[in-house]
């Protein structure tokens, strides 16, 4: 019925538009091409009369909406356009001058035509500074396909089903009705921040499989590097312990020792930040693997397990307000830190603590993600040099996600600072988050598309696969104050939620998780999640096959 790719549906044209297209094809679209003017913010207007003020041909009105008849280029206000259509046969389709949208006068509705959108988009590309040759006008050249795109696509074809070997767990303490890998971690003295992150990491499907498949061989590692300390070896040891079937709480003492030697600035007996620890561990893993492989690759291509699992690519577009010239940069990231989307609540009483019921407007994850990808006007004290204007100009900046990671870690920034009193405090407000997350609206393809009016057009790097669908598998929740609080991790294994509170593992209802105060959210690509559910009762041993091999250079 309707042509559909996974991003948008091309709506079926109304009878009048279809007839019009049959009779005239693209001719009128191309002829009015010269009347289309694109403003620096990406909007396209019909501006035929550069000297006269456009007025309705009947009533001379110039305020409000005006329609431009595609057939005869006459102008009409909404009240009188029907008169024109009735008096002239074949003049049913017009363009809204302000927004360059097609309008069917008989259906009295906005209608859509991919061919018209294509003309508009090509015009936009032409009009914006940089032109179609340059890659820095906000989006790459129309319709070109690049093999680079496919290489950058994250591999969803992780073929984990092949070469499975069933290893039976003979430990009588296995309590086999519960999933493997579920085991408490002893608190070593204010180390709940560490335990909570370890639980999430060890159950992230790519990492879990990596260690279970013995991808990091501790004996070889020690022989090769000659060092006694390897964060990966320690994590490997914890992973083996977690999946051994023994359910008594494990003490990650050696890991703490290794980690303190790696991150000596964080080595102190005090409560620390789980997110900071998370970054530190990934960094440690990366360093270790870089040493082993002797590669100095930057993050975008790094093949260490930390980056293979968590690395994504962010795109930043900085647009000059005056001329519309956009410069684009890409930066790798291993997680996304989000500001909370609450309206500033402490308006007048900075001193009074705010009770939960006084807050207006719920905070949601999609709200935070929208905030993250919103075009933000940079202050006048932050003027940037525009290559086109050749001087400092006001700009706006917009972030979007160019490439999604296999495992998406979202960090909710729950600290706010008082500029006046120079203290920090924790934002305790509840934030709603989904269990199934669709990241499509935050992709660069979607953001750039919407910047140019959501036209029906195939951009160079439209990811028309389903790798934007994610399922949650771990939530790190924080309770308490800024200075002293407690972290717990909720794990989702085989559709049952478990609470991992240091040594205590308990089953919880999903409602408890939904209602918790989340601090870090861990999502994994849906395909991986579904595979993980199926396979979590088995242990994969594949000595020769690297589970990630099938994705390298997929084309």
């Amino acid at each position, binding site marked *: 019925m309707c042509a*559909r790719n996974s991003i948008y*549906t*091309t709506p079926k044209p109304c009878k009048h538009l279809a007839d019009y297209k049959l009779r005239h094809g693209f001719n009128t679209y191309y002829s009015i091409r010269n009347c289309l003017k694109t403003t620096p913010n990406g909007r396209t207007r019909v501006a035929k009369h550069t000297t006269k003020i456009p007025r309705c041909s009947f009533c001379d009105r110039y*305020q409000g*909406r005006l329609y431009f008849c595609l057939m005869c280029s006459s102008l009409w206000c909404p009240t009188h356009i029907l008169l024109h259509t009735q008096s002239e046969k074949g003049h049913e389709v017009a363009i809204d001058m302000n*927004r360059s949208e097609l309008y069917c006068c008989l259906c009295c509705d*906005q209608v*859509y035509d991919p061919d018209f959108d294509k003309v508009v988009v090509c015009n936009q590309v032409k009009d914006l500074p940089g032109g179609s040759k340059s890659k820095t006008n906000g989006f790459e050249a129309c319709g070109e396909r690049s093999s680079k795109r496919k290489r950058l696509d994250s591999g969803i074809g992780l073929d984990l089903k092949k070469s499975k070997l069933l290893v039976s767990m003979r430990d009588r303490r296995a309590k086999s009705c519960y999933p493997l890998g579920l085991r*408490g971690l002893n*608190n*070593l*003295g204010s180390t709940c921040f560490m335990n909570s992150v370890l639980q999430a990491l060890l159950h992230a499907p790519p990492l879990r499989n990596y260690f279970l498949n013995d991808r990091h061989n501790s004996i070889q590692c020690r022989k090769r590097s000659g060092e006694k300390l390897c964060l990966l070896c320690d994590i490997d040891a914890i992973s083996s312990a977690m999946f051994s079937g023994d359910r008594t*709480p494990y*003490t990650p*003492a050696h890991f703490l*020792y290794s980690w*303190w030697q790696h991150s*000596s600035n964080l*080595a*102190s*007996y005090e*409560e*620390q930040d789980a997110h*900071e620890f998370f970054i530190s561990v990934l*960094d440690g893993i990366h360093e270790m693997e870089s040493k082993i492989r002797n590669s100095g690759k930057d*993050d975008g291509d*790094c093949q260490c397990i930390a*980056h293979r699992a968590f690395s994504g690519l962010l795109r930043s577009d900085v647009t000059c307000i005056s001329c519309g010239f956009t410069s684009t940069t890409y*930066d*790798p990231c*291993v997680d996304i830190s989000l500001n*909370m989307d609450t309206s*500033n609540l*402490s308006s007048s009483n*900075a001193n009074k603590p705010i009770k939960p019921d006084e807050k207006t407007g719920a905070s949601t994850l999609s709200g935070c993600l929208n905030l993250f990808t919103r075009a*933000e006007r940079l202050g006048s004290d932050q003027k940037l040099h525009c290559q086109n204007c050749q001087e400092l100009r006001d700009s706006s*900046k917009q972030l979007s996600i160019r490439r999604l990671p296999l495992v998406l870690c979202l*960090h909710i*920034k*729950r*600290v*706010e*600072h*008082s*500029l*006046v009193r120079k203290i*920090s405090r924790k*934002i305790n407000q509840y934030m709603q988050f*989904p269990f199934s997350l669709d990241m499509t609206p935050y992709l660069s393809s979607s953001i750039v598309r919407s910047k140019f009016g959501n036209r*029906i057009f195939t951009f160079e790097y439209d990811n028309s696969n389903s790798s934007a669908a994610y399922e949650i598998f771990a939530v790190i929740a*924080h309770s308490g104050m*800024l200075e002293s*609080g407690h*972290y717990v991790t909720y794990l989702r294994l085989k559709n049952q939620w478990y609470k991992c509170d240091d*040594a205590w593992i*308990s089953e919880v209802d999903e*409602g*408890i998780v939904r*209602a*918790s105060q989340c601090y870090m959210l861990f999502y994994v690509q849906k395909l991986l999640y579904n595979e993980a559910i199926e396979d979590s009762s088995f242990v994969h041993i594949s000595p020769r096959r690297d589970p990630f091999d099938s994705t390298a250079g997929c084309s």
Partner: protein
Amino acid sequence: MSGPNEDNNTQLSSHIFGDLLDSIIVDVASECHRIAKLGLDRNLEEEEEEMRLSAQARARVADPSNSSETNTKYVVDIFGQTHPSVATEIFECMNCGRSIAAGRFAPHLEKCMGKGRKARLKVTRSSTAAQNRYSRGSPVSTYSPYSNSTSTNRLSNGTPSVAGEEYSNGTYEEPWNKT
């Protein structure tokens, strides 16, 4: 247009305001129309379902008649085990060889390794990352500029500090600034 009314200006300005408002409304309507027709918001139903489930969950948790799972002291975990508040498993410290109880290992190790207060004088990796945030391919590789793990964002931190933020949705009227 040029009537001889006394409040001509008021009429004029409300007329202009009305026009502006109309044009904004039409703008938004047209945009939403396109988004709806192209199916760009097709996840609306799923999103609403998630919202409903979350609201339901919160209501249940807030209801005092429900036993609050989160606050009850643990008696027994799902494996039928109990654990003391301070872990009692004894093992050897890998630094000095002494026998230590697990729950007291961290404070012991701190002194044993000579870490702690002294370490804080060193430049943190986080602040190095903040300096490197506009350079790409820096050796501090996994510290992305957008992942702000600087000390200003730590929960359970002993030393809060006020630091700049490269992107903030700053409405500076209120005394509290988000980071």
